[in-house]
Every structure is written in structure tokens, then in C-alpha cells.
């Protein structure tokens, strides 16, 4: 269906981006691979380019359409750092790291970021120039993860407990469509207008690009809300005897939304294995008794609190404590406050941080699989996940965070494995498939669908939704050149399951004949 990158194509890429920013070097192409953190699938791209601006991106897409060559855009990737490698059928890989601009408008409380801006850089700039404001960078992701990568994937931020998924912070996008046209959304659509009103002049197409994993358009700028940054902060943690014990009191804290809930910017927790599996399994006590002696409950929830004064902070802590005490009585359980050393508190308050990285020490590799579900259902989901992980021989490491005052939970098992072990990827796939089938039946949703497991399984159930996506996709990307296969579009690129659309294979349809879109300058 697609063509290969020829010498002629490389010459054209060089004419657009400059010789310094185009390579077909085999070792350099291998350096863009990644299997782990957020996905296991990756293939070698045929050429890498590093465009400087939206105009170059646009011209490359026009050329790729003419030659019917797939294009994968990526910068820092997702919350895991770098996690958007090319998948079949390879093609041109667009490394967006050169586009790393940041503009801050404190009056309108918005920042405009380019794809290559990394969380650590954004944090540094705010710290020195705008200390009263914070960029909503991802929490727990390494500093090289990009702000935009997190936002457009609808990930979570350091204030996600209050403000919701990161995509909710977006006020406008600049998108280079697969045809090369450049589109601005929200109030930005009007030339000269500031990105102050997300919904713009009419129906808003943002949702088509957010979560599309680069398959509907290349976002070259995003206007994202910035948040106030009060400097009275702390972290408090409560333990529990079950997942229920950490989920239910959080709901009690969060459900009123105003008041104390609005100061709990990040609420996250998990089980004791979150600590255990950060170390090599040969060099750490494996028995919970050791951790119990350290004063650690089997389950716990952390509340990161931001306030305008010490009084406000103390009041919030007091109220949370009261809620926990009332819950203990009501549920006849124990939820002891966990002792946190000042260094632990400082470490949790540090943004961005590297807390999510060391799970490869357990053996040699790990995978985050992330799901959204209604908050009060998350305990059930975590119980099921842990049981299944143990059945498959993985340590049951589980993490959860409250999104938007406990409206949703983001539930994330951390699957620690030995990536050098033959057959391990098949085993993970089997585990992933079994849990996905079960969870979809229970109405839960994967947050970043894996093209080989989650997307086919989800779309097999949500057929009408998938058909609509395909229609939009074909309007936006008539030749299907942008990251094909990433969202199981076209279907046959990733699965042998029956196509829920019942459409002919892409190779037999009109999409195999390339069109020649014109670039709007």
C-alpha cells in the first residue's frame, strides 16, 4: 500500500529541512526505537527528519502524500519520556525536538508550547521568570517528557486531581493536517485572536487530534492553561487494609469539589509493591513484613496539597484527617496516617521527577498499562488486575490517581518483566488481551490504546464510534499517511479480527491512489 523512502524522497526532504536535519543512517534510525513504558511495538523508520517549524512540517506532509509514504511524528513522547516509535510500515520519522518554543501570557493565564518543549525546561523557565505560576507538566514523568506529548495524549498533570486530564487544559491547537493544511482551533482560529476561548467560533475539532497519537494531524503548537503556584505545600499519606480503604475516603475528600478538595492538586496511591519493585528483586526484602516494620501500610493514598497560607494548609490537613477518622469508624477498618520523612515529602513535591523510572531495576523492563474508570470502581479494577498479574507471574504493582476531584481514576499496573527472556512479549500480550477483554466488558476504558490489543478490542465493541473515526480520518488524511496503524486505522494494518466497519481492505479501496493536496501558506 505504501511506498519506500527513495533517494529522490531523501533529496526532497533535504531541500525542505536542510541536509543537517535529514538522515537515513541506520544506527541513528535504530536510536529512535523504544519498547517499554507505554508500548512494546516499534519498527525501524526509513528516514529521520528534524523540522524547524510548521511550514517545514507542512511541506514534508505534502511531499509524503505525493509519494504515499507514511510519517510518524514524535518529540519527547508521552509521560514515560520517549515512547512514540514508528510502527509498521515505518516510513519517515519526524523528530520534533527542534521545535521547543515556549511563550507565556500571565495575564490570560496561558502558555503556548511547541512539541519539543520538555517538562524540565518548562519548569526551569517558570521557576526563574514566573515563580507565581506553574506549567501543568506531567507528574511522575521524567523531565525529558514533553509538555505537549502529555497534553495531547490526555495524560495527567501535577494538578490533575483538580483540573482533570491534561487535555482539559488545552485552549487551542495549531495543527498541520495530513494534507499539509495548517489549522488553528478555538479562538485562535480568528487571525490575531488570543487563545482565550477553547471552543472557538463553532464546532470544535480538538477532540479529533487529542488522543489520536499523531494519526490525525501534527500538532505544532498548543495553548495550555497555566495554574497559580502557591508556595505552601505538603504531602500527607494515609494507609489502608485494602484498595477500598484508599479509594473510598478519597471520594469523601473529593466529592464536594470546592474547599479542601480544590487544594488536593494531586491524589495518588497504590500498594506496597510500588516500593518493592523499584529495586532489583535479588537485592531487596521480598516479604511485606519488612515494609510493615518500616511503618508502611499495604495500601496507601498520597495527597499533595497546595495552599495560599500555612493556616489554609493546616485546615486542609485537619479536615482530611477527620474524614479518614470517620471512614475508619464507618468501615470498621484502619487507615493510619503514614509517616513521611521530610525528604520523602520534598521528593514527592519535586517536579518533574524520576519516580516512575526505576521499575526496570526489578528485572530488565517494564510496561505501564493505563486505564480510566469511574473513581469508585477503581478498587475493584485494581483487585482484578493484581490477581491477574500474580496469575501471570508478574509482581502485582499497582498505581492509581484521582482525576478531577475523584470523578475518574487513572489505574495503572506496572508490569515488571525481564525483556531479555524469550517469549516474554507474547506473555505480556496475552495478559494484556485477557484483562482488556474483561475490563471492556465492565465498561472501563484504556487511556492510550495499544494498536495491537486495546484499539482492536475496544473498536470491536464500539463499532459505530470506530466507523465515525474512519470517516473523519479519511477526510483529514485521504492517503492515510500519518502514523498508519497506530489507532488500528487502517484495521488490517494491525489485526486479523473482522473489521467492524465491514469495509474493503484499504489496499483494495480508493485510498491506495494518492491525491495531491495543496499547501495553504
Amino acid at each position: 500500500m505504501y511506498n519506500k523512502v527513495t533517494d529522490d524522497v531523501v533529496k526532497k526532504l533535504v531541500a525542505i529541512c536542510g541536509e543537517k536535519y535529514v538522515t537515513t543512517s541506520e544506527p541513528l534510525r535504530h536510536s529512535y526505537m523504544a519498547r517499554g513504558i507505554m508500548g512494546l511495538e516499534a519498527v525501524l523508520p526509513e528516514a529521520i527528519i528534524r523540522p524547524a517549524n510548521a511550514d517545514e512540517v507542512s511541506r514534508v506532509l505534502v511531499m509524503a502524500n505525493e509519494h504515499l509514504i507514511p510519517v510518524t511524528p514524535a518529540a519527547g513522547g508521552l509521560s514515560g519520556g520517549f515512547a512514540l516509535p514508528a510502527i509498521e510500515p515505518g516510513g519517515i520519522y519526524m523528530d520534533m525536538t527542534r521545535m521547543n518554543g515556549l511563550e507565556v501570557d500571565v495575564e490570560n493565564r496561558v502558555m503556548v508550547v511547541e512539541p519539543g518543549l520538555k517538562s524540565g525546561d518548562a519548569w526551569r523557565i517558570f521557576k526563574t521568570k514566573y515563580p507565581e505560576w506553574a506549567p501543568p507538566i506531567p507528574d511522575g514523568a521524567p523531565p525529558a517528557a514533553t509538555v505537549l506529548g502529555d497534553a495531547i495524549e490526555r495524560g495527567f498533570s501535577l494538578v490533575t486531581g483538580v483540573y482533570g486530564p491534561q487535555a482539559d487544559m488545552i485552549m487551542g491547537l495549531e495543527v498541520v493536517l495530513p494534507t499539509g493544511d495548517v489549522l488553528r482551533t478555538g479562538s485562535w482560529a480568528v487571525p490575531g485572536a488570543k487563545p482565550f476561548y477553547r471552543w472557538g467560533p463553532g464546532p470544535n475539532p480538538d477532540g479529533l487530534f487529542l488522543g489520536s497519537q499523531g494519526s490525525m494531524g501534527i500538532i505544532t503548537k498548543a495553548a495550555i492553561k497555566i495554574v497559580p503556584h502557591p508556595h505552601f505545600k505538603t504531602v500527607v499519606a494515609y494507609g489502608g487494609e485494602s484498595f477500598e480503604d484508599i479509594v473510598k475516603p478519597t471520594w469523601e475528600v473529593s466529592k464536594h469539589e470546592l474547599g479542601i478538595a480544590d487544594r488536593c492538586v494531586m491524589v495518588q496511591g497504590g500498594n506496597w509493591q510500588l516500593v518493592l519493585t523499584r529495586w532489583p528483586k535479588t537485592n531487596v526484602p521480598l516479604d511485606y513484613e519488612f515494609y510493615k516494620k518500616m511503618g508502611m501500610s499495604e495500601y496507601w493514598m498520597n495527597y499533595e496539597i497546595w495552599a495560599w497560607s500555612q493556616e489554609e494548609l493546616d485546615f486542609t490537613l485537619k479536615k482530611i484527617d477527620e474524614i479518614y477518622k470517620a471512614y475508619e469508624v464507618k468501615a470498621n477498618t484502619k487507615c493510619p496516617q503514614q509517616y513521611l520523612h521530610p525528604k520523602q515529602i520534598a521528593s514527592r513535591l519535586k517536579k518533574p521527577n524520576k519516580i516512575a523510572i526505576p521499575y526496570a531495576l526489578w528485572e530488565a523492563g517494564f510496561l505501564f498499562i493505563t486505564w480510566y474508570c469511574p473513581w469508585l470502581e477503581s478498587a475493584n479494577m485494581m483487585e482484578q488486575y493484581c490477581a491477574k498479574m500474580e496469575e501471570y507471574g508478574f509482581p502485582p504493582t499497582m498505581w492509581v490517581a484521582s482525576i478531577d476531584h475523584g470523578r475518574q481514576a487513572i489505574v495503572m499496573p506496572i508490569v515488571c518483566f525481564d525483556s531479555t527472556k524469550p517469549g516474554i512479549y507474547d506473555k505480556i500480550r496475552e495478559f494484556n488481551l485477557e484483562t482488556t477483554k474483561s475490563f471492556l466488558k465492565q465498561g472501563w476504558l484504556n487511556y492510550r490504546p495499544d494498536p495491537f490489543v486495546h484499539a482492536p478490542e475496544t473498536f470491536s465493541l464500539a463499532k459505530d464510534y470506530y466507523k465515525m473515526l474512519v470517516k473523519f480520518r479519511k477526510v483529514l488524511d485521504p492517503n492515510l499517511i500519518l502514523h498508519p496503524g497506530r489507532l488500528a486505522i487502517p484495521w488490517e494494518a494491525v489485526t486479523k479480527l473482522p473489521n467492524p466497519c465491514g469495509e474493503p481492505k484499504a489496499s483494495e479501496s480508493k485510498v491506495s491512489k494518492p491525491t495531491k493536496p495543496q499547501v495553504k501558506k
Partner: protein
Amino acid sequence: MTSTLEDLRMINARCIHCRACQYAYSGEPDREGQTEEYTGMIQGCPAGLYYGWEGYFNSGKQWIARAFLNNEIKPSKELLEVVEACTTCGNCETQCENRIDTVSVTEALRAAIIEAGIEPLAKHKKFGEMVGNDLLRNPYNEPREKRTDWFAGAKDRKDVKVAYFVGCTGAYRQQHIAKHTASLLKKLGIDFTVLTSEVCCGSPMLRTGQKAIFEDVMRKNIELFKNYETVVFSCAGCFKTFRNDYPRISGKPLPFKVQHTMELVRDNIRSGKLKITKPYSKTVTWHDPCHSIRHVGIAIEKDILSRSNNWLTDARTAEKAKEAWFELPREVMKAIPALQLKEMYRVKGDSFCCGAGGGVKAQFPDMALATAKERLKEAASTGAQVLLTSCPFCVTNLSDGIKALKEEEALSHKKLPGSDLEVVELLQLLDQLI
């Protein structure tokens, strides 16, 4: 003993491509600095900064190594050129939360490519031939018999417990450092000798993947020095090679104790035997040599963890021991009256390389110079007059950087940061003050 790429397969497999390794202070986003440029996490990889492509950063290199291990990429000159363009400074190793031995993986990958039949890169091959040549045994094409010509004392003594391993740069290119070190040792009351049969420590060979030659010189040096109690060093690279690499590659502990001369000075200061009275009334900044500071610190930390069955409780102890090592030159500088130390932003484990190491200066001189200039700019930002360090190779490359800045100034008629700095070797300064 983990010396081949295959030995490191499990360790390499820990890389999740998070790219924290591209930065200095990747774990300290709130670190205070004097300017926006030097605040929080900042770029820390010389090769990545210079070339820009992912493959030049450690994060990309780990995935190239994985592809090589899995036979997904064939050995080629093109591959070797990418992999060799790295100073092996180890900043990436400091940053890695999965504790990947990044430098060992890079060096092992270089060796594996060469062992698979690819010739070392031109300059590397040349100094490999020179070190392998019995008449030379140094990468500077200098006659072996002149190796200790700089030394006026008695050579090859067997009646002393201490031998001074001079290294090729001290012996042939920075002889003033060797002379000052010898003088300093004498002032410290150490009865020592130098050996005329000393051969290159092998560091450039190991760094550039020429392992057979490295193993040959390693065996020769161990044999040569085995009857001495202590071997002392002035060269950061030789010290690191003996201390860290010889036991790792040979699989055996060294038959002698190794110490950097700076340690001897520090020990004498601590014990009260040495008190520096002569003042040094200058504002200085300190450049941590990657080999003797970062690499040794990391090795100390790893050594403690290798003996621990509970990293959760011992990791902090190991880290403290590493940090204590980083204080070594600082303790010495504090003992110098009137010396005003103004630290650069990137220091200790997060220090930015001078640009010379890993075979880069010979094979990729432009990158080496660009890296030196970047470091000089940072040094100049402290307002210091003097850039102190303790490594002959750092002294050479940073001095070359200043020379290049002066040439650029002459052409552009613009003042460039760092061009006024004076590079001084700390051992030389100590000899002058004691």
C-alpha cells in the same frame, strides 16, 4: 567481571528510553542557579549537544547497543562512527535511575563492533598501533626510552613501597604536571620511584574498543607494579583505568593499592601533617575531571551496592560515600589560604565534560573544542580568574579551547566568555604553595 557487550545484555535491557540521561541534574528540577541558563536541569551530554541526533545521546546509544545485541544492526564503519563520538564522561550514568552502566555498555559496544571485523577509526587505529608497539608504548609516537627523561630522581627503585605511575600525557606532553607531582610527593615525605618500563595504562584503547591492546598493557602494568604497596597517580584517566577498569576487566583485585596524589594531600591535611600557609589570592572555579571524580564516585557507590542484599536501605549509604568522594578536591582547595572558590553550576556527578575523553579529541576534534568552549563559558559565568582542575587531558583541551576563543576574538573583535581564564593544574598549584 562484566566486560563484553553480551555480559551487559541484562543491564542494557533496563533502558526504557526515558532520556533523563541527556541532562545534568535531571533529578533536581528545582536546583537553584544564578541565571536562567544555569538553573534546574540542563543539557549534560557533550555529544548529543553537539550533534543533536538521538543516536549521539546515551539514550539512543543504548538502543543501538540493544539492536546490535539482537543482530538487528550489522557492524559497520558508519555504526562505529556514531558510537565513538562520545567522551564517555559518564554524566548519563549519574542520571540513570535504572543504574545502567552506560559507559561500560558504550565501550563494550565499540569493542564488539571492532571484534566483528570493523577497523578502528583512523586516529584511534593509529594510537592503537603506537601503544601496541614495543618501541613506543604511548599514543604520542614518542620513543619509549625517553618516557622518564623528565624525572631527575632515582628510577626503578625496588627499595621503596610507592611507585608513581606517570602516564603518557604527563611523560610526554604535560611534563610540568609530572615534575610538580614528583616534587609534591617529595614534599609530602613520600619515598617513591618511577619505572622506566611503565607502559600506557591502556585507557585510550579501552575507551575506543581496542580491547586486545588494552588487555596486553593492563597485564604488563600489573606485572610491573605488583611488588609495590601503593601506586600513586597524577593523571585522572590512568587512575580511573587502574582503579576501576583493571579489576573489572581482569576479574581480579589489584595486587597494590592505588591513590590519586590529591588523596595523599587531603589525607595529610586531615591528619594535620600538612598545613598550607602560602596564600593564593585568586578567584578560582573548579572543573571536576570525569575520570577521577565522577567515575570513581560512581564506582564507590556501585561497590557498596554490589555487596548489599538490601538496596532499599543501603542506597543512601552508597550515595553518601559517592558524594564524600566528590568533596575530595574541594577539601583540598578549602585548605589553601585566600583561595576563593566559585563553583560552576554543573559540578561533581553532574559536571560537564571538558570534551577530550573517550578518544574524541583525536578523532572528533571539532566536537572536543566545542565542548571545551561550552565548559569555559560556564566557568566564565562564575567570575573566576582561574580554572583549576587536575587532569592533564582536561588541562590540554581546556587550554586549546581558550586558544580557539582568542583566535575567534581576533577575527570577530568581540569578547568571548572564557577567553581570559587561566587553566591551572591543582597539583602544580599545590607544589608551588607547599
